[in-house]
């Protein structure tokens, strides 16, 4: 039981790529421990013979014809870009 009750909010926030302030980290730690504590009730169920449901409606292998259709133009796709130049998205430097 104990191994599931330990969320390390500071660590998980790093995995989720969200910077948190110290205050937020502390607050979320308390709040999410309570939520996860509540979720412990699921452990009372015997699920050994239950299939898992990824979706409420079982549908598989949905295909459509591979036909060309209009998409966004480069100009339209760039319209919401935080930074752009020469018809390209300008990104933060990735490689030193």
């Amino acid at each position, binding site marked *: 039981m104990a191994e*599931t009750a330990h969320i390390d909010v500071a660590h998980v926030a790093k995995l989720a790529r969200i910077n948190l302030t110290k205050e937020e980290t502390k607050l979320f730690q308390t709040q999410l421990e309570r939520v996860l504590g509540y979720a412990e009730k699921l*452990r009372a169920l015997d699920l050994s013979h239950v299939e898992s449901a990824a979706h*409420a409606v079982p549908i598989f292998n949905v295909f459509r014809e591979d036909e060309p259709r209009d998409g966004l133009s480069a100009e339209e796709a760039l319209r919401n870009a*935080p930074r752009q130049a020469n018809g390209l998205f300008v990104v933060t*430097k990735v490689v030193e």
Partner: protein
Amino acid sequence: MTASDLPALNIAELRDLLGRREVSPRAVLEALQSRIAEIDPQIDAYLSIDFDAALEEAARADVTLPLGGVPIAIKDIISVAGQPCTCASKILRNYRAPYDATVVRKLKAAGAIPFGKTNMDEFAMGSSTENSSVKPTRNPWDISRVSGGSSGGSAAAVAADAAFGALGTDTGGSIRQPASLSGVVGFKPSYGRVSRFGLVAFASSFDQAGPLTKTVSDAALLMNAMAGHDPLDSTCLNEAVPDYTANLGRDLRGIRLGLAQEYMIAGVDPKVRAAVDAAVAHFESLGAEIVAVSLPHTEYAVATYYILATAEASANLARFDGVRYGHRAENTRNLFEHYGRTREEGFGPEVKRRIILGTYVLSSGYYEAYYARAQKVRELVRQDFARAFEQVDALVSPTSPVPAFPLGERSVDPLQMYLADIFTIAANLAGICGISLPCGFAQTEDGAQLPIGLQLLGAALDEARILQIAHAYEQSTDWHKKRPPLVANVQRPTRKE
């Protein structure tokens, strides 16, 4: 009828006038515009409105179409080409949708005019619209209280006659609960009945768009336009769409309604319980048979939902990386800082909380204990409903355990807020359809009348029957005719020569 009376009409009444050309789409829009100017500063239902674009559409509206010339408000999580689509989030503050969601394209094809975007909890995460990064929406029945959420702007706009009808989305109750708290009709279609293409994804295996309206038959009218297969959404079912208005008016003889013993829980406001009990008695008087049923896994639904929906959200919201659209933090030195600060600055507290919870339940070492386990419980919940619908046509319950609560009262405790989703959330786990409609009022100590919502849940793709049952109740009661005092008390500016 004068122009100032138009906004009080429902969609069917408005269509009647438009179809007979007694009023023009332009006159309708102008009447709505002045209504919104009067009312919205008091309730903050809208995030953006583009009347100029709407007037252009009104000029070429075909009033012979089923929704020809009817303005419809759209929750700000659904894309309308050229309009903002911010999800009430700072991270999308300057974003404009480059294309129409399928459901918007279908409404336009039926003649409707999307003219404005409604307020919501950020990324639809919340039950009070207090998680909007812009402003909370206020309940037209008592502006010191919430209008519910996450589609609180849509619900409040319809309740206050500041919209003839609106679209919302329902991931865990986000159409039905605000409809209940605001005293309007809110309909959640079965999963896969309406295309999700063009909705900003929150939890993809739960999200469904649906209508918020003044009457059940208006919900059916909008569903006729919205439902149906879409090759752009692989989860959208390729099933024939019935005429949802066809069954309206049929009586309830032979209809079996289920009461789940697990819904007789503590924590339900006695006024809510009394109103729902009275509604059940009323259904019996209309000829329906009441049957006791069991949904044994009800108590696990909230925990299951908050594991699965946050897991899906953590993956879906990974797209907000500040690269192609949305907010980007300034002056970052490397990529980690770019992501970390962009998302710190862009997301509000509830969204951060849910992304972190979702990341945790999917992370190595915890996946089996939480995510995999919750998927199995989801199957048990689904089976509960499948068995219940072998015995009954619909399940009856409150929509929300409480009427509208004061702004600020619950926003401090996320778990308390989540637990209030008990009656709505299981329907999303099971993919079934449901409706909330007005069934009474609770009077507060200071004399305000707060609407109470009745929920009917139906089997997957059984929308037509749920609408029929809801319509029979509505038409034999007066609840839907009551208007909030905000509406009645508005002082129109007196004309001076």
